[in-house]
């Protein structure tokens, strides 16, 4: 029945008072958390959810916290503590072999090369849940 509640609730965001409400992807992510957790734990009450959202993942942790309250309302996750760890971005330079920290996706190695791959900071996963 969780799915039904999610579906009906998503209508709430469909029309804001101004019309044409935009449903941010953080809400999809929060709904996916509820879905993935209840697939695992059924109707057991959940006390805490631990997520990993990398700083380069394209998901705002604050927006996700806001959406989590909306998405969990009326589900076994309602009222659960949301603990989000936000690993920093790291990149590897294929030219000089160095690993270095990156704050955004503007990827330039200190050596001047742009042949750079992101190796950390794009994580987006559920680490664990605590059953209440």
């Amino acid at each position: 029945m969780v799915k039904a509640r999610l579906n009906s609730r998503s209508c709430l965001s469909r029309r804001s008072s101004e019309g044409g409400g935009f449903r941010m992807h953080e809400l999809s992510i929060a709904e996916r958390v509820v879905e993935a957790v209840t697939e695992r734990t059924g109707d057991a009450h959940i006390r805490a959810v631990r997520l990993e959202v990398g700083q380069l993942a394209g998901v705002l942790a604050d927006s996700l916290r806001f959406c989590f309250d909306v998405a969990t309302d009326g589900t076994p996750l309602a009222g659960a503590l949301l603990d989000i760890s936000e690993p920093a971005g790291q990149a590897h330079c294929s030219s000089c072999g160095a690993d270095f920290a990156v704050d955004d996706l503007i990827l330039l190695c200190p050596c001047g090369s742009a042949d750079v791959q992101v190796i950390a900071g794009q994580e987006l996963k559920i680490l664990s849940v605590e059953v209440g």
Partner: protein
Amino acid sequence: MCATCGCSEDNNVLVIDPSDRGRPIVLGQPVTTGEHEHEHSHEHSHETPARPPAGTTITVEQRLLDKNDRLAERNRGWLDGRGLLALNLMSSPGSGKTTLLERTVRELHDEFGISVVEGDQETLLDADRLKSTGCRVVQVNTGAGCHLDADMVSAALRTLDPPSPGLVFIENVGNLVCPALFDLGERERVVIASVTEGADKPLKYSAMFHAASLVILNKIDLLPYVDFDVTQFDEAISSVSHHAEQLRLSATTGEGMDGWYNWLRSRVG
């Protein structure tokens, strides 16, 4: 509503064949009517998991987009098996995606079978525009959704039944943020920007441009009339992507379209 899983017509996402607009597919609805045989256009288990005792911590270690990514892989296999090359076209609203597609279909349809999945929050306007070019097209209305996902594209592809071999263009919802996260099963990601936007767009929306295999700068016929620094734009792309190829064109006048067609040919061949 299905009493087991709660699938209901409350879901906002519609897949619409513009030739048969009275019968949209509602995502999440049972495919069959009458006797409930429980076929769905989405995947999930109906088994109730065992209830863990209170106080236990369960390690999940599951990627949040895992389900979307698995469905995207399935779409990719489905497309590959039919000799179809799918391209995910992304841009902000108004960059000229639909105009680019209209011209591409008109000028390339005899060379490749082309079909289109149109993604918009509402209306069949773009699907109707594409339909008038003679290609096969299906509209996905995401309702409140800000992006297409692999489940929507899976349903759209089955409705579209694209002629194979050929090209399938998936025109994503106009948005430079959210679509970057969702793999649809495409082979190539094409991001379209236009000279009426800021040249710093690649820096402001780096995740989108970072994920692109090709960046098209559209509306270059307007360059004499707007304050757009092409060099700054090229440098901005280079700083967020080492691999993205770049093309400049005008879908209105046709200037530079050959470069786009040759790029497509190189991907098909």
